[in-house]
């Protein structure tokens, strides 16, 4: 069976559930992986990536030029999550350097980056790779690129939703929302009840007073470049 057929199959069986999700999740409508949507997205976004030079954009956001990197691979060598990545971190930089933006933005690597900064502190060219990865992710979201590590993105979105609504992280809400987004209902069953029992998880969120301000920060920063 081809990959596309696979996707359609999956889409069919989960369709209802996903519609439900879409209505529940406040951030962005869930992108259906149906053929038309896929095509439309491709037409609208990906082919226009080259319009604006992504490497320039990254340089602007991170205040460092991607041409600094001389591809020694020390970042990849010391990356703790290297084994889980599809391409090496230095290759993401390489793709951006050469203008293969689509390949870079579609890669799982930026999403798996844990931001531990091991690469940044060891880089012989003092290139802050962690910051670079932040920018790549940011641009990938803005361009609407399909994100393979969607659970990670969903986690981040769920987390930010908590902050947006309460000002602080609300772990019950976080886990609940994350579960709803991913439909991965069984993953944390061994820890969450334990947390309740130990009195670590509060059932009610800690709301800060000035939630208005937080909401406005979110609103003002969500504008796409």
């Amino acid at each position, binding site marked *: 069976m081809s990959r596309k057929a696979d996707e359609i199959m999956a889409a069919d069986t989960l369709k209802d559930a996903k519609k439900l999700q879409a209505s529940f999740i406040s951030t962005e409508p869930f992108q259906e992986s149906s053929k038309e949507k896929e095509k439309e997205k491709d037409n609208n976004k990906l082919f226009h990536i080259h319009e604006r030079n992504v490497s320039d954009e990254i340089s602007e956001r991170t205040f460092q030029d991607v041409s600094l990197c001389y591809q020694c691979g020390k970042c990849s060598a010391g990356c703790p999550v290297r084994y889980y990545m599809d391409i090496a971190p230095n290759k993401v930089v390489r793709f951006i350097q050469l203008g293969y933006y689509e390949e870079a933005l579609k890669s799982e690597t930026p999403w798996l980056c844990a931001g531990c900064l091991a690469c940044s502190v060891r880089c012989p060219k003092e290139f802050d790779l962690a910051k670079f990865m932040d920018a790549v992710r940011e641009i990938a979201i803005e361009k609407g690129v399909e994100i393979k590590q969607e659970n990670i993105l969903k*986690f981040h979105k769920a987390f930010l939703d908590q902050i947006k609504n309460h000002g*602080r992280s609300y772990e019950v809400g976080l886990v609940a929302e994350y579960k709803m987004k991913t439909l991965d209902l069984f993953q944390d069953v061994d820890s969450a009840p334990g947390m309740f029992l130990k009195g670590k998880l509060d059932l009610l969120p800690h709301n800060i007073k000035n939630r208005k301000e937080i909401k406005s920060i979110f609103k003002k920063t969500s504008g796409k470049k």
Partner: protein
Amino acid sequence: MKYGYFPGCSLTSSAKEYDISLRKVIDKLGISFDEINDWSCCGATSAHVTNHKLSTALAMRNIMLAEQQGLDNIIAPCAACYNRLIISQNEIGKHTGIRKETEDLLSVKFKKDVKVFNILELFLKSGLNKIIENRKRELSELKAACYYGCLLVRPAAITKFDDAEEPESMEKIVEATGADTVDWNYKTECCGAAHSIARRDIVVDLSKKIIDDAITHGANVMVVACPMCHTNLDMRQRAMKRKYPDHKEFPVLYLTELIGLSLGMDEKELGIDLHYTNFKYADTLLNNSAKG
């Protein structure tokens, strides 16, 4: 000196014991805190990995509150919060564009230079002899592997307090409690951090390696100063056990809990019973004498 206190979200929930033990310990050592009023999330991980403007604004909101409250020094016990706060400060200090953007967002002007300290700096600054003087017992049975994680010492150019590769400050503090420290390899290796929920498989593997290295080098307890690290190293030991059946439970303590123990407090008082792994200092004594 009075410190502003920025607990961060974790310390109000999943890392409650860190907050509890910290408050107890500093009380005993005569250090006082002023919690920042109405503090909010620092923007750690989720914000900065997806939206840099948002993360800087979230972090700087707390700095702004501290400034408004007249606090010159704040202490951020969570390593991730500490890192976000100093990096954001550094960004707005270095790039006028970001500074302006953030100031406009929050409609303030940053004037003062609010200094952010991590937990290690707090104890080093307030004086290790305070711990030694108030020590009720020497934790000489403990061989601690001091785990810094990533965000406490990196990037050294901004944190400017210890070496990024071979840090030693936590060892100094732990040794003040009378405990021994071990020289090991994974002091600053990453535990997987925020992937804890979305990619638990990664976190389990990485944390397992860290714990194994500590055991190989003769440690019987691990000391951490970051709630995220603690969650991964402590809570994820169950998942570890499932994946690696020969895994043996290994206690992971917060630095403040260890200090608390040496100051004579008991495990319950310090919230050690809230951990997923069991730890009783008395047991360590027993174990060691049984071996000896």
